[in-house]
């Protein structure tokens, strides 16, 4: 019943948006964000940055609990299964995916971004750009254009019926596509069953993501002298992270784009300064003086232009007296 109501609301909202033009582009973004968590869908999507990768994604909500399954269709056999907050991966015994299991992000896995709409218009121009057809479905196209040079632009195509993201492109300032995400086939609604969201691979090994550490985190002692306007720190922690070393981390977002800052004691061998990019994700590293004037490796990673990542990294400094402040 809930599903029917949800479907009716979605259809009514879509009809309103298309026929009357009453819905704002921001409404579509909000619906998109909700759709990834509330809709039932089963589709194949491609992701193109430097390489083309194909995945099957199944999302089914049962009694309010999300069941999600991501299947790698290229390369090694891998599946990532999420039921509520429990995440596990299924892969060959020697697959490196098992080693990074505790670093896997939570779902929904087909979500390109989760917009924070408040203040979005100050930094992006968001416009409806008509209807198109993607993956055999009618899509509403939105253009999200940055108002300055410190962020990228997006083109998104949302399913008219469900508001699911059917296609997205991320463009740099020169209009070059940095990445493309697109469903090539998609089923939605009651046709999607919980069995579709259950693992099918046999003869593989399952690893489970350990529960996140609880308890208060130390505020980071590293601060940013400069971040682009509109970016706010959404998370910061004094230690822990992707490696066994102690890493201070800061996460910033402007509502669409994000970047993370990692600081750790400089390893014996490190290429710094260096700038790297993969698809839309830029990464810049540099060395900075930390506690007791020891050398530390500062790394900025995010969906921002490389020059912006570099400028942010250059402003990261050790300031324990400011720990706990907003920036």
């Amino acid at each position: 019943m809930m599903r029917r109501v949800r479907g009716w609301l979605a259809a009514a909202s879509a009809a309103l948006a298309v026929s009357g033009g009453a819905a704002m582009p921001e409404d579509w973004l909000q619906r998109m964000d909700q759709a990834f968590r509330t809709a039932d869908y089963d589709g194949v999507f491609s992701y193109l940055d430097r390489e083309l990768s194909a995945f099957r994604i199944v999302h089914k909500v049962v009694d309010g609990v999300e069941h999600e399954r991501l299947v790698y269709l290229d390369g090694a056999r891998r599946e990532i299964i999420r039921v509520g907050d429990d995440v596990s991966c299924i892969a060959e015994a020697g697959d490196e995916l098992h080693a990074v299991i505790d670093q896997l992000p939570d779902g929904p896995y087909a979500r390109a971004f989760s917009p924070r709409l408040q203040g979005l218009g100050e930094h992006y121009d968001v416009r409806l750009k008509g209807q198109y057809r993607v993956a055999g479905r009618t899509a509403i196209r939105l253009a999200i254009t940055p108002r300055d040079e410190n962020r990228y632009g997006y083109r998104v195509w949302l399913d008219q019926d469900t508001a699911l993201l059917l296609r997205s492109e991320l463009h740099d300032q020169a209009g070059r596509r940095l990445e493309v995400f697109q469903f090539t086939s998609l089923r939605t609604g009651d046709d999607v069953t919980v069995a579709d969201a259950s693992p099918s691979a046999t003869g593989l090994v399952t690893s489970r993501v350990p529960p996140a550490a609880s308890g208060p985190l130390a505020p980071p002692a590293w601060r940013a002298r400069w971040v682009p306007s509109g970016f706010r720190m959404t998370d910061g922690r004094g230690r822990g992270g992707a490696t066994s070393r102690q890493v201070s981390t800061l996460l910033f977002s402007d509502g669409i784009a994000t970047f993370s800052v990692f600081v750790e004691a400089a390893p014996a061998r490190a290429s710094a300064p260096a700038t790297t990019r993969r698809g839309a994700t830029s990464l810049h590293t540099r060395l900075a003086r930390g506690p007791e004037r020891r050398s530390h490796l500062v790394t900025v990673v995010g969906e921002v232009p490389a020059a912006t990542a570099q400028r942010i990294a250059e402003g990261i400094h050790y300031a324990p007296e400011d720990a706990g402040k907003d920036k």
Partner: protein
Amino acid sequence: MSQASTSDGVQETLSAAMDGEAMSDELHGALDAASRDDELRAKWERMHLASAVMRGALTTSGSPPASAPLGTKRGRRAAKPSRRPRLRLGPAVAAVVAVLAALTVVLVADLVQEEGSPNLVAATAPAPTASMPAAAESTDVQPLLQEVVELGPIDRRRMNAYMLQHARYNAAAGTAGIPLARVLGDPPTAELEEE
């Protein structure tokens, strides 16, 4: 269906794609087939080459690209006189055929912003109607940016670890969940080795 007719079908799909069709399930299958067939892959590359020439998107390394910074491999390479013009293909080709390593170094100056870029909107002025080109209407959009220099294995592992962690924090914070594909499209790398 014979292998020849399958190949013909794939070629037709690729050709249609080059004529401006957006990605479709047919194209997806064709790209997959092309990535496994040397002959098809070569044709796909030639199609892109022809398309790039028609768009004027192809450059040679005879003169340093404006975006090539000094002090980098690319910059140094670009600054040297080239014995013969070297074609730089659009990255879509690479995206289809690439099976090489995960992370690539690009040049900071490659992305230094140009003032008045048509892909920005003024903070105060109304947005222009023609800003960023979109897929459905954009033969002028160059596909995917690629300028690469290999990183060493330790740095590559470190970068992969940071990218994974960035994705995880994004999701945990609920601010922006980037697709898992962004970080796991290539084989993920385990925790850094102690050096």
